[in-house]
């Protein structure tokens, strides 16, 4: 008897007892369904977080100036300008792992168009900032290095600001806006980035060349850089170490003294997030293993009952010429069909549940095909593992005893 025929016999035997077969697979259905649904939800959450971090820019370091200490009261970071333009130049020339290093000065200010006004963050920076943040333009062309050199009065609007001043879906490129009563020509609108991982609107900002910022918005402090430095690194950890060493050296901080600046490594935050989601995935895997185990025990239980109940059937089959291995394969086939069917139905149930959660609560879900395939393979393995004992028991029955069994 070939495999296909065995499978057909097994399925026919299961269909003879539809309700019981279905109830037996319920354990597998719930186990696999729960795994598929929770993995989809977990993955959805994870990819949402990842996307948010990716929108910040990859391998991003932010150098913040240090704190002031006035009579024992310590100010926060940035309360005292400690970074200099020379520090920036030194980072650019002496830290090879820093691909870009750009200053970022900011001030809250009202921006006016002909008809509207909006208070937002005005940032003075350089064109490379858009490289660091992987931030393309939606409309127009961003300002250039020569704009920075000459201090041109041009502005790149964030998506939110463009909406507020000119209305949605408008093209403000070429128009004029006024900041602190100074007219700026709009050269571009930046593409939307959405929310930051902390829930702030990334697009509620306008960018102007940092020289223009220093000259028109906020009076310069000479050699001090009154803002932060964004660094895009080839390797965040290396760059962090190198920049720390360089700045400590330049600021003559020796031995145990505290840094007078701070470096934030966003890659670290992202990887910590990923670490925690990996832990969650591990727990899910354990839950999955336990639920499959429970499902498998359920199948073994019913198969043992089935073997006892069908002793005469087994005896008859042996009498008319079934060999031990035919019986073994039939019952093993039944167990595997039950468990794989449970796995497949479980996947369906999981997908339906996850989709429902998306529809009802707008939870982001992401289906992992590898998890589903693994679930089916595991279900099959559970079927073999837990079906083997009952099947062996069936195949070793003495036909004379089995035929007489009441």
């Amino acid at each position: 008897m070939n495999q296909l025929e065995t499978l057909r016999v097994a399925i026919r035997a299961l269909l003879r007892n539809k309700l019981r077969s279905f109830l037996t697979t319920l354990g597998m259905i719930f186990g696999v369904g729960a795994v598929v649904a929770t993995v989809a939800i977990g993955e959805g959450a994870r990819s949402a977080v990842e996307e948010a971090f990716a929108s910040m820019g990859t391998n991003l370091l932010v150098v913040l100036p240090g704190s002031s200490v006035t009579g024992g009261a310590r100010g926060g970071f940035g309360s005292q300008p400690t970074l200099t333009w020379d520090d920036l130049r030194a980072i650019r020339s002496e830290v090879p792992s820093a691909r870009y290093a750009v200053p970022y000065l900011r001030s809250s200010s009202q921006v006016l168009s002909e008809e509207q006004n909006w208070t937002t963050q005005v940032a003075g920076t350089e064109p490379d900032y858009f490289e660091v943040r992987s931030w393309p333009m939606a409309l127009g062309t961003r300002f250039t290095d020569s704009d920075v050199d000459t201090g041109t009065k041009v502005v790149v609007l964030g998506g939110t600001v463009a909406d507020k001043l000119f209305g949605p879906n408008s093209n403000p490129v070429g128009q004029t806006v006024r900041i602190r009563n100074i007219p700026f020509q709009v050269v571009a609108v930046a593409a939307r980035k959405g929310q930051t991982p902390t829930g702030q609107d990334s697009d509620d900002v306008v960018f102007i060349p940092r020289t223009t910022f220093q000259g028109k918005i906020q009076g310069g402090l000479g050699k001090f850089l009154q803002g932060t430095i964004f660094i895009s690194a080839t390797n965040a950890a290396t760059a962090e170490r190198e920049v720390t060493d360089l700045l400590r050296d330049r600021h003559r901080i020796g031995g145990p003294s505290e840094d007078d600046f701070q470096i934030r490594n966003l890659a670290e935050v992202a990887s910590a997030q990923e670490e925690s989601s990996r832990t969650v995935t591990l727990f899910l895997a354990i839950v999955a293993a336990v639920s499959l185990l429970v499902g498998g025990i359920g199948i073994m239980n019913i198969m043992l009952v089935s073997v006892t109940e069908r002793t005469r059937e087994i005896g008859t089959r042996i009498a008319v010429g079934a060999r031990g291995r035919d019986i073994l394969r039939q019952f093993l086939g039944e167990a595997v069909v039950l468990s794989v069917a449970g796995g497949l139905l479980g996947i369906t149930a999981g997908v339906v549940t996850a989709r429902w959660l998306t529809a009802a609560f707008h939870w982001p879900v992401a289906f992992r095909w590898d998890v589903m395939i693994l679930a089916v393979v595991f279900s099959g393995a559970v079927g073999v593992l837990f079906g083997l004992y009952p099947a062996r028991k069936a195949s070793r029955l003495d036909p004379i005893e089995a035929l007489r069994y009441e």
Partner: protein
Amino acid sequence: MAGPLIAVQDVTKVFRMGDVEVRALRGVSLEIATGEFVAIRGPSGSGKSTLMNILGCLDRPTTGRYLLDGRDVAPLDRDALARIRNRMLGFVFQSFNLLNRTSAIENVELPLLYAGLGRTERRRRAAEALERVGLGDRLDHTPNRLSGGQQQRVAIARALVSQPKVILADEPTGNLDSRTSVEVMALFQELGRSGITIVLVTHEPDVATFVGRVIVVRDGHIASDRRQVPARADPSTLPAEDAG
């Protein structure tokens, strides 16, 4: 083929039940020729069931030889015996042993499934066998929709379907009323006339009158072995079968 179809030579069977040895057969020899219709009778515990199991290749003798169609089957392993049961023997049981919730034709197909026949061939031969026992119009009936006599005829069709040399029937009329018993015996007689060898075990004296040879087993020996002119099984002389 020269020689008898079945030749049992000085067969003994000893069962071990803990420390106790039970000698179910104490040296049985018998020969059955092709086409014979034989009944084995004897009180319970006489060894007739053990003898039947050995004839059916469900059990092996402790000592002695059993030649089936000239071949010694005593030394064969389980798989080889399964093959012989499948190809050369047909079984009919007292309680029919049909698979429930399974159509008559699928029940009859069962031996062919293990013979490795293709689906269409199985169908065709199973339908033929059911035709032969007079159930050509009940192919798709499940056992619970058939009367006792019909169920036993399905079982006989199952025994016939692989075209065996011998049909072994263990109390085939034990669960049937007297009229149906006669019907089943009539069917056996008809099969016997077409050349099939039939061995049945029975304790009913009436049933034994329809066969051509009666072997009585007692205490593990053959007590008597005599041939007779079989009575004709004619169900029309009996009251009608109860409906159901």
